[in-house]
Structure formats: C-alpha cells, structure tokens
C-alpha cells in the first residue's frame, strides 16, 4: 500500500495543511514554520506526495455553485446486465463529474455540474432518454459544515 511510504513528517503535513494555506508572498515558508520544517523540505515533500498520489493535489478547492454554476446528485437503478453500457452513456457527458457504483437498488450515483443552472434538467432528461431509465434527482437543499479532516 502506498501509505506505507509516508513518514511522521508527511503525516504532520497532511494533517496540518488540509486548509488554511496562506495567501502571501512566501506561503510555503509560513506553513513550514508551523510544522517546524524548512521551506525547501515542505516543497520537496509536497512534490513527492502529489507525485505518488498520496495527495490528489495541493491548492485551492473551489465551490462550483458559488462560482455561479449548479450541481446536483443523481441516482439510477441500473439492471446488472446493462451496467457497463449505461455507465458509458452517463460518463460520456462532460457535465457528469463523478460517478460511483454503490450497493443499493439505486446502484449508480453521479454528480452533474454545469456552468448554467438551467442546464441540469436538460442533461437529466437527456440521460433518461439515452438510457430509458428513470433518474432520481437529489439536489442539495441544505449543506452542513464539510469536514476537512482525513487523518493520515
């Protein structure tokens, strides 16, 4: 497993830097001071952690809705013998950002995102037409604090 290759300092970096990275002239220097390593070492370790995919990336996380776009969560009950075919149809739309197989009658869960909120209904109707399956739409009605703590 990849996580065997991370040491205590890597853990400190991952646990301390999941948010709050400064917007300043020398942000890595400020962040490195907090975890008591040098700026060079922090940058080198982040390069390695991103390169080894321990981190998906290092940088800002944007909120698509606040940028003026719209996002919704959708689910479908896909017959087993059509699962791969339907996954291809759903994934072929560039507005589908994530798609997961899950353990339930509703066994395919995907996120639809668009710059234009009016697009969502059109995209969902298109997926229903492509697949002949009903799409259950679960737009977010209220968002509770999103935790940011994956402990390494």
């Amino acid at each position, binding site marked *: 497993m990849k996580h065997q290759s991370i040491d205590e300092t890597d853990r400190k970096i991952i646990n301390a830097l999941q948010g709050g990275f400064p917007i300043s002239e020398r942000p890595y220097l400020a962040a490195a001071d907090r975890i008591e390593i040098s700026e060079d070492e922090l940058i080198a370790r982040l390069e390695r952690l991103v390169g080894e995919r321990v981190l998906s990336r290092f940088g800002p996380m944007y909120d698509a809705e*606040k940028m003026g776009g719209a996002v919704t969560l959708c689910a479908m009950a896909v017959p087993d013998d059509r699962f791969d075919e339907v996954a291809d149809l759903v994934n072929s739309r560039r507005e589908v950002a994530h798609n997961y197989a899950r353990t339930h009658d509703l066994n395919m869960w995907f996120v639809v995102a668009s710059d234009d909120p009016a697009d969502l209904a059109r995209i969902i109707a298109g997926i229903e037409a492509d697949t002949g399956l009903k799409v259950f739409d679960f737009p977010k009605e209220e968002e509770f*604090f999103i935790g940011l703590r994956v402990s390494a």
Partner: protein
Amino acid sequence: MSDHGSITEPVDRQIIAATQAGLPLAPTPYDELAERIGIGADELRERMKRMLDLGIIRRIGAVPNHYALGVSANGMSVWDVDDEAVSRLGAEVGALDFVSHCYRRPRHLPSWPYNLFAMVHGRSRPEVEEKVAEIASLLGTSSRCHEILYSTRILKKTGLRIAA
C-alpha cells in the same frame, strides 16, 4: 443556491483555470501564477483572498487521496430524519470529524424515505459501521431508519473543470 451570484470578471476565471489542478510548488507560487496570467502579484493575491472570503474558494491546502491513505471504505449513510429536526441535527452530524460531506436532500417516496446524507470514511466497512452507529445514537428517535451505501467502483472522477 448561492447569494453571491456568479463571477463576472474574466480575470477570476483565469485564476481558477490556472489553479484548479494545484498551486505551483515553488517558494513564491502566487508570483508565478500572476506572471503566467499577466497581472500583478498583489492583484492576484487580493482576488484570491476575495474568492476565499466569498466561499468561492472553500479552502487552500492538501487534498488527500483517501485510497492512498488506506481510508478506502466509503459509506454514504442516508437517514430519514424528522423534518423539524433535520437542520439542527444535520449540523451536529456534519461537525463529526469522520463525516466529510453532509447534506439535506429531497425524499423520493415511497422508495426513498431518506432526507439526510452523511458521507462516512473509514479504513474498513466495520470501522464505517461503528461510525454510523455513533451517528445513529446522536440522531436517536429523530431518525426512523437508515442505510449505508458503499461505493464499489469509481466509474468516473474528473472533478471540476472550468475553462478560462
């Protein structure tokens, strides 16, 4: 929906496009970005601070790959919670440190009675189940029933893509 409207200024979209894959891993990352975009470093930092204040940037930092860290069991727990209590209880569930996302979403009756979704991460399914039991005791009788939907396969994961 957002109260903040959309970003209308093309410069902000250029900044987003230039940073959505990550910040430069160099001592002065914002100066490098500013040079690439062709604006001053002070202006770039001010615009990013504004986006952070508005919540357009949720946060800046390390985005862990759960799977690489061994946190590979991912259970979407879904709950049928009293409508009068769901806002208060949702905030409490969202504050738990093993819950990465927590939303109120519509029911689809009769087949889908659940209105609260909480994503729970753990190193194994038994660990996820222990955590879900904690949520169950927090919700008490306000939750009529719940289920855990485990992810078995990632079919697509491209994340956000914004063109400049």
